[in-house]
């Protein structure tokens, strides 16, 4: 690893560890930021690297949310009674039950969406371009409607996730727990995606984006890679959903879990704002987006959606390739796109 990278990464990690103590009032916002970055980075694998604009990743996020909470409750209490009575009024998790349930719940929240992504991917990743996008849009909406009809997970009235154990008296503990949980998820996601960026797998995803027919003609079985790529996203989206459910404390089928109208669109916007198809683009994009969005919600309350809409229009018109793409076009040499002058002779010799 280069020295400058080492400084950058250790600086970011130290900042990440210190952030909840430096800005205690923004702990929840920082937690959400970590989750948003994870969602943007994983969406970027589909939309940016593979060129398959998916509006369906929200499915895995919502699935992870419901699964994590259901397991956390179901491990110790009857799930149906919990949701019917509004949860915590009748039953109470002890400290160890809460954390055990959370750990096991997150495991399930990661694995099941991954499997679901594999199955759905096998069925629909044969679609290309707009057809794929529209199909995935349907997935999120359908999941929300279905979840809203299942009694055992609260149906339309929602699902209260287990509250933080009462035995832990420190009022900061809950916020810190969820912050560090999401921060760990962010680091794990980053390490994995960084690894992918140095692998054949990333190049294959790019090949699929740039010319899928050519990739097949060169002997790459594209379907396999498309499915695996989606499964990777689903894995991290599921975890993000699981953590988010615990943080918010209440799951609604269409407004919190399968929130394609907001979160499902936000993950696309964040990746586009920062620059699709780059490692840092989604991270920068998610951070800026979160700052803008919270700013609008605070300063322009009542007009926040209008302001957000204007922001989207500005992004699409002035930064169609995102910030990273804009920088690449301005300073291509910084991105390694240089003509090797020493070799100019070789071109002349070609006759």
């Amino acid at each position, binding site marked *: 690893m280069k020295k400058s990278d080492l400084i950058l990464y250790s600086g970011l990690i130290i900042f990440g560890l210190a952030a909840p103590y430096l800005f205690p009032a923004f702990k929840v916002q920082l937690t959400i930021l970590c989750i948003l970055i994870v969602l943007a980075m994983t969406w970027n694998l589909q939309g940016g690297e593979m060129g398959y604009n998916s509006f369906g990743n929200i499915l895995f996020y919502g699935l992870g949310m419901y699964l994590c909470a259901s397991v956390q409750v179901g491990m110790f209490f009857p799930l149906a009674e919990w949701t019917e009575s509004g949860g915590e009024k009748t039953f109470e998790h002890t400290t160890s039950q809460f954390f055990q349930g959370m750990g096991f719940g997150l495991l399930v929240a990661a694995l099941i969406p991954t499997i679901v992504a594999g199955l759905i991917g096998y069925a629909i990743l044969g679609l290309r371009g707009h057809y794929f996008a529209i199909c995935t849009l349907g997935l999120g909406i359908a999941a929300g409607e279905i979840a809203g009809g299942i009694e055992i997970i609260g149906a339309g009235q929602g699902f209260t996730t287990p509250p933080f154990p009462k035995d832990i008296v420190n009022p900061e503990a809950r916020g810190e727990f969820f912050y560090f949980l999401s921060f760990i998820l962010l680091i794990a996601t980053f390490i994995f995606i960084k690894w992918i960026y140095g692998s054949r797998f990333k190049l294959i995803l790019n090949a699929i984006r740039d010319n899928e027919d050519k990739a097949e003609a*060169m*002997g790459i079985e594209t379907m396999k890679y498309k499915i695996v790529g989606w499964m990777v996203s689903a894995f991290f989206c599921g975890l993000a959903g699981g953590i988010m459910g615990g943080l918010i404390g209440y799951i609604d089928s269409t407004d919190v879990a399968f929130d394609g109208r907001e979160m499902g669109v936000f993950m696309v916007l964040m990746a586009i704002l920062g620059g699709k198809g780059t490692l840092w683009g989604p991270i920068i994009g998610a951070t800026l987006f979160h700052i803008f969005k919270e700013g609008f919600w605070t300063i322009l309350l009542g007009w926040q959606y209008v302001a957000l809409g204007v922001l989207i229009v500005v992004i699409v018109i002035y930064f169609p390739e995102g910030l990273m793409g804009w920088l690449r076009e301005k300073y291509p040499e910084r991105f390694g796109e240089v003509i090797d002058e020493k070799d100019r002779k070789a071109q002349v010799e070609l006759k």
Partner: protein
Amino acid sequence: MSILEVKNVSKSFGGVKANENISINVKQGSIVGLIGPNGSGKTTLFNSIVGTHPIDKGSIKFDNKEVSELPVPVVAKLGLLRTFQQTRIYSKLNCVENMLISHKASDQGFAKIFSKIPPDLTERAENLLNFVGLHQKRNLRAGDLSFGQQKLLELAMALMNEPKMLLLDEPTAGINPTLINGIIDRLIKINKEYGITLLVIEHNMRVIMSLAQKIFCLAHGQMLADGTPEQIKNDKRVIDAYLGAQ
């Protein structure tokens, strides 16, 4: 010994009979040309051979193995590659990455799906880019190259895959005359040094006559004539249908 045996292949799209009872035999290590007027079914035949679409009837054998039912990537893995008339490269990747992704090892078992790229492969990629004269532009995005350079890149990508046989769809279309000579030299070199069998679609008569040992001529989806370049040049039917009656 023939490496590619096409027997009585027919393919129609709706009412259009693109190929009718086409038979072609390509000997291992040879360079064979495929000519014919526009719409005579040359590219359709290529598509049939590599499995882009199913054929209506007939058989296609590559290396004594029936390939007419196999999907495109599987045929490619057997060592039968094609290039495209409209260049197809990965436009947002740079030239070296285009090369790396074209290497055969790109599709190993499931366990190696996230494996890193072996470093010696980069050297091989750069050598091949040098071979087609693109070494100095190796760090540019492939989409920023000119059309002719993209053709050369596509050729280099095909070589990176180490195929047994290459189907080239108009390798010199849209390329300036000096560069065409470069391509002819390189194609002959590929054939001699790497032992890759070539089947070339070409409209440029000078190119195909100096390259091929044998030429097939298609017209209206049917086999019109076949023979040595000399025989084809003097064939009355070919002259009428394609070269132009005088």
